[in-house]
């Protein structure tokens, strides 16, 4: 759906995007992450054809944008981080204008549906200059969805929203994805990305450092896994037995609570639980601490780790 080949953008001596090979498959939600200045927005602008690349190329729906400019643009919905609106218009006028531009059929019915989805239909006749930042962001999403695009490019889609608005947008994106839409989301709200994205790509200093599913990223970043057990009662022999297990890296205990660090090559919860039982212990709670996207993001970007090789992290 989106493919960039050695995409590069230089501004004078600064390389904003460096040989980027990005692949977003049809029907997936792709989280495009990176710290400020990583080159995400520059990449999105090049994908949209708004910035010419210094080298490399972008393919959307299998074609270069110049090959079929208008048809490709009609199949994309875009929500930018900052909403630039015609503030002298009402929401209805604004969407009607874009509806006409995209030649949306039954435009008034479609506007009603779209504004309804972002809970702005009751405010449709208000001037946009009176809208709050969150309302403007939701209107931007309504504009991006209005022509029922196959591909959505969303740059920080929930940055101005309250938790209720974030949930609304999350539900809309999941609904759209369920209908087969492909979505690329650039966001700093990593918990949201983790919740809805099938795959993530992490950029830093213009380079794509990692591109994978969350589970695979965790597996490749994690050298040790921490398991926290709560026993029915304190048992010293259980702690001693756990220390003897070959895959255990360390054990610490605090009364009935035991923390076991194991190697990350496989899931050892079953063996840990069986060992506890063999030594007369009863496990009433067992938790595996998984690396969050936030931790993965920080690890990758702070150390500038490239995970694009097939095996494990490489600096």
């Amino acid at each position: 759906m989106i493919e960039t080949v050695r995409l590069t953008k230089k501004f004078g001596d600064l390389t904003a995007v460096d040989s980027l090979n990005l692949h977003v498959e049809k029907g997936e939600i792709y989280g495009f992450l990176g710290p400020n200045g990583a080159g995400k927005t520059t990449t999105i602008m090049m994908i949209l054809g708004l910035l010419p690349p210094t080298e490399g190329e972008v393919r959307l729906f299998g074609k270069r944008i110049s090959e079929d400019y208008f048809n490709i643009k009609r199949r994309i919905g875009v929500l930018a981080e900052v909403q630039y609106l015609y503030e002298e218009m009402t929401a209805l006028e604004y969407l009607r204008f874009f509806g006409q531009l995209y030649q949306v059929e039954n435009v008034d019915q479609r506007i009603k549906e779209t504004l309804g989805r972002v809970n702005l239909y009751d405010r449709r006749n208000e001037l946009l200059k009176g809208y709050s930042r969150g309302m403007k962001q939701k209107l931007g999403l309504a504009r991006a969805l209005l022509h029922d695009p196959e591909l959505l490019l969303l740059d920080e889609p929930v940055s101005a929203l309250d938790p209720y608005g974030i949930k609304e947008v999350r539900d809309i994106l999941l609904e759209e994805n369920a209908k087969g839409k492909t979505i690329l989301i650039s966001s700093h709200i990593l918990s949201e990305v983790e919740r809805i994205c099938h795959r993530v790509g992490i950029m830093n200093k213009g380079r794509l450092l990692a591109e994978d599913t969350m589970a695979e990223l965790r597996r490749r970043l994690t050298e040790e896994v921490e398991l926290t057990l709560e026993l029915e009662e304190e048992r010293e022999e259980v702690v001693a037995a756990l220390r003897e297990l070959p895959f255990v890296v360390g054990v610490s205990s605090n009364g009935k609570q035991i923390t076991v660090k194991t190697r990350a090559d496989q899931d050892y919860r079953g063996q840990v639980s069986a060992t506890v039982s063999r030594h007369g212990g009863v496990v009433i709670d067992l938790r595996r601490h998984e690396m969050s996207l936030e931790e993965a993001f920080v690890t990758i970007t702070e150390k500038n780790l490239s995970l694009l090789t097939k095996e494990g992290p490489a600096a």
Partner: protein
Amino acid sequence: MSVGYRIHAIKVSTKREIRSTLYGVGIYVVLALIFLISSYVFVNSTLRSVADAGIQALTNPITSPLFVSVGLAATYLGLCSSLSISRDRDLGTMEVLFYGPVDSISYVLGKYFHQLLAYLVILVFSLINFYAISLVTNVGFSIDILSIMFLSIFLTSCMVSFGILLSVSTRRVIVSVVLFLALVLFFLVFSMVHTWIMSIAGQNLTPTMVYVRVILDNANNFIKWISPVDYFLRGMSAVFRQDPGGYALSILSSLIYSLVLLSLSVGMFQRKGVRR
């Protein structure tokens, strides 16, 4: 297929802009000012001189106020064009349009046709105004007035294309506006000085003035092709000479001028990009 999409994008963006212009107060304020100024010119030139002389033979008594009227309207719309693209870039609204099915050609032509349509609105009001003046003062409403009014559409086309080129070339609104006004003023002053110096008989000029005249005349050979005002003046002159060929040539050259400037604008726009 892309031509159809492009025409559609031009139509939709022109419609939005002209609607915004017609619902705003700016165009009506400018219309009122234009009528006031042209009426003042009419009263102070034609009517007062007739009153002073008792009788005067004038073939086109409405020409001066009409010239002022179309000149001001075209300059105003050229000014609006000169700030339109840099303002859109500054506000970021341009970027949003380019997320969708709008390209640099449809965007630039949308701006051009918007200003031209706005001029047609002004022209309709001007026609009513001058017809009313001719009826009230009984000075007559000749075919020349209609010819000049028609010609003024092409003057506006030149002014608007010129403004669009400046707007595309600059990133800041204030720079485009100042540049537009400064250049139009320069062209007008240059044209007046050139006309004046060429009207003086050679034997009355000092050697320095002869040298200045040669330089100005050579400069004029270049400036007359880049100044939007000159295309109109050539057409006006053809109207007064009753020269239909010259009139048609002036319209054709105005169209070529507009086309060249709009093509340059599109090229420059593609090079600069749409980002703020």
